[in-house]
């Protein structure tokens, strides 16, 4: 940046490789950088913008539902609004959020590496993401999409609007996800610092690694499915539409074969962050390290064979339904083990209740609700009643937002000082966290009740008996919005301060906390040699990184 040479820091550190990465290079060099940290930061701003956009649609949807019938928009606008909310949040925000933004920044440093294995590929992933995002925005302004984010056929092949363009955007975004996953797998295999065996890796790496496996194996199926959908819409190739000799249920099989594993692409990185925050903020060795590491891998594998639980009412065979139901219950067990491990890790710790830990505690409670309500939906007879009602809406928001997004916010607050070299206002952060917790529960708890009472999802209009619960939910969305507004305020304010973050504000022991905040361009002066476990808080700290300070 232009002021590089005028900052006191830059004047004292004359050698290029000592300059912190934030002040290293012009705007053009940022846009063409292969530095994983800069790419992580650029991803961060991109996904936060998308989160804002998806959030605006969410608030509009909730506002429309404040009263039955027409409130602020008509049925067609409502259908587009909830579709865009879902599509933006899933494809443009949650899937890239933790791996591409925080993972890109932290993963190579945690491994003791200078960068990811394929830095240029990393840059390509970013620009493919931006291209996909631009195509998606084009689809939104040229007709919009009203299919729901699931694009179910034959509705999606027969409705008007920019469905082909939107699915093409998801197709392009998929490649960004695949390439990022590929890059992370190679990085974890090849670029671990000397001495860092698989079981000396921080658990964040295990989570991101498991995620990367799913990204690489499942995303191509989505790409093929969306391509077939585009072929059917554009050229009348009959794959899914029965009028053309296709099978609409086949689309659902294809779609969920990706999109169920995608749920774990979203939640595993969230769990990975919690596995970092809990031991660091509790200053405790991790309880059940190997069980937690293997449960990430187990979740990644079993997640491929449970897709049919989205389809108990779809007309698939009863036997298939029974098998999927059984496997669904099995995939819950590794998640339960993780929860027990996190809680036990806190036992007899020295627990700081700073903002990252508040988010981790919120995660434990909200993921508890999200995970346990999954048992209702896994049981076939009960699911038949609850399927496609607000119960499902509430369940997946507790998992996607209450868990993944809350973990993302925890990670953002945990690594913010490392990324930008500044501390945010802790009191404001706590107020915002508590508002988000209250707002979230006010929005989504009533939806469980609406769902069990029979309120179907994706309804523009509803019966008068549901009005009160819808209004509570909408008021909750305002509290949630206020919480995020405050967060935006104190995070931006922190960037205007001069750099004040210590290298290790949390007294954590993974490698990223052993280098300055923000890191220098090449992360480490010397390759660190790992001799300790990542969470050995029971003995005095022995740094693995030499040459800083």
């Amino acid at each position, binding site marked *: 940046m232009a002021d590089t040479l005028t900052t006191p820091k830059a004047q004292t550190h004359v050698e290029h490789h000592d300059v912190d990465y934030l002040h290293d290079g012009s705007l053009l060099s940022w846009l063409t950088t292969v530095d994983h940290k800069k790419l992580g930061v650029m991803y961060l701003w991109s996904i936060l913008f998308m989160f804002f956009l998806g959030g605006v649609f969410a608030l509009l949807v909730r506002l429309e539902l404040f009263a039955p019938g027409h409130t602020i928009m008509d049925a067609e606008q409502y259908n587009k609004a909830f579709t865009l909310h879902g599509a933006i949040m899933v494809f443009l925000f949650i899937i890239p959020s933790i791996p591409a933004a925080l993972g890109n920044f932290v993963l190579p440093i945690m491994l003791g590496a200078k960068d990811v294995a394929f830095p240029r590929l990393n840059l390509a992933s970013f620009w493919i993401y931006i291209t996909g995002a631009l195509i998606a925005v084009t689809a939104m302004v040229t007709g919009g999409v009203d299919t729901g984010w699931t694009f179910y056929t034959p509705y999606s092949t027969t409705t008007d609007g920019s469905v082909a363009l939107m699915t093409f955007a998801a197709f392009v975004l998929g490649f960004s996800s695949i390439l990022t996953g590929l890059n992370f797998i190679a990085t974890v295999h090849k670029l671990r610092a000397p001495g860092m065996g698989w079981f000396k890796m921080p658990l964040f790496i295990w989570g991101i690694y498991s995620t990367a496996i799913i990204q690489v194996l499942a995303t191509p199926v989505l790409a093929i499915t969306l391509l077939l959908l585009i072929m059917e819409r554009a050229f009348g190739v009959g794959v899914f539409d029965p009028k053309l000799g296709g099978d609409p249920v086949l689309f659902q099989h294809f779609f969920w074969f990706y999109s169920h594993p995608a749920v774990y692409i979203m939640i595993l990185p969230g769990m990975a962050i919690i596995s970092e925050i809990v031991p660091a903020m509790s*200053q405790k060795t991790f309880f059940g390290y190997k069980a937690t590491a293997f449960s990430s891998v187990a979740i990644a594998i079993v997640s491929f064979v449970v897709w049919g639980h989205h389809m108990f009412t779809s007309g698939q065979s009863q036997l298939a339904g029974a098998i999927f139901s059984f496997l669904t219950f099995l995939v819950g*067990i590794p998640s339960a083990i993780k929860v027990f491990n996190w*809680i*036990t890790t806190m036992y007899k710790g020295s627990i700081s209740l700073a903002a990252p830990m508040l988010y981790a505690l919120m995660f434990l409670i909200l993921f508890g609700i999200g995970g346990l309500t999954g048992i*209702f939906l896994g049981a076939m007879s009960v699911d038949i*009643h609850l399927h496609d009602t607000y119960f499902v809406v509430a369940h997946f928001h507790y998992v996607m937002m209450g868990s993944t997004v809350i973990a993302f916010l925890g990670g953002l607050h945990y690594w913010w000082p490392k990324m930008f070299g500044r501390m945010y206002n802790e009191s404001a952060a706590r107020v915002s966290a508590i508002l988000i917790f209250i707002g979230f529960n006010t929005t989504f708890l009533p939806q469980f009740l609406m769902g069990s009472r029979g309120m179907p999802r994706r309804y523009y209009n509803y019966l008068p008996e549901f009005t009160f619960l819808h209004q509570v939910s909408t008021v909750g969305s305002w509290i949630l919005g206020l919480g995020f507004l405050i967060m935006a305020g104190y995070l931006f304010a922190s960037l205007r301060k001069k750099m004040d973050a210590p290298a290790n504000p949390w007294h954590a022991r993974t490698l990223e906390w052993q280098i300055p905040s923000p890191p220098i361009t090449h992360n480490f002066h010397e390759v660190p040699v790992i001799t300790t476990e990542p969470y050995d808080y029971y*003995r005095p700290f022995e740094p693995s990184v030499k040459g800083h300070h």
Partner: protein
Amino acid sequence: MNWFRDWMMPMQASEHAAKVDNLYMFIFWLTMAFFVSICYLTVAFAWKYKRKKEGVLTINFQHNLALELAWSIIPLILVIGVFFWGFNDYAAASVAPNDSLEIHVTGKKWSWTFEYPDGTRSIRSLHVPVNKPIRLILTSEDVLHAFFIPVLRTKTDIIPGRYVDINFTATVPGKHQVFCAEYCGKDHSGMMADLFVDSPEKYAEWLEKGDEELYKMKPADLGKMVWEMKGCNSCHTVDGKKGEGPSFKGLFGRTEKFTDGSTIVVDENYIRESILNPQAKVVAGFEPVMPTFQGLLREIEIKGVIAYIKELK
């Protein structure tokens, strides 16, 4: 705790609904026990072990085999139990008793049509006799829909070009809500129907009289529906082309010549007679092949056909 269940769930209008609710409540209390434990431990640990001073070392507690086995195996056994419970009730509900009353359901953007074994048709309202096993056979004419009856705890997606079924025995007479639960476009939220569970007498009376929708339709539209549904269209065209029988086009007011040489100007009475006693007068040039519709059409439907023929000038 029935009040609590009734607060969370709709009314139970079948035995299956009661079974579903039993499992629902079992899972509710089971998960509540886990949830309260998770919350208690999370908050209690965060409170009790809150950091008092910086830089202290903590204990090295990484494994406890008994604890880890217990919290893996106990939940596993519990969820396998829940699986079998849920699967059993689901499987039992998916088998139709042999004496089921079969009703065809067609979903179309954005309404429901029901067809009964005697040919009666109703729109947006499904009538069934109480305590009688019912098998709905459902299909869609356009996109996916889903037929959802909350009080019966049953639901199925409806797929174009395929039949799916739902089985139930409703035990509570009255009017119940039916929703479309699979997103299908603009009026998805308006695609509702009423389920009327009637006493056997009331059901028979309703079949006799026909759906109240019939009485709201324009007579000519009703006539057109009868012409399609009762198969008139297989012999009588409406575009003037010759079929097995005379075309309806321009029929009203025309002078028809019969096989016995007599003639008549077509009026309401002639059409009525031709429907109920078709062999009485057979138009010259046609075979006497038309069956009688005596007892198969309601009065209002005969009036509808006459109105329809009048419109086809």
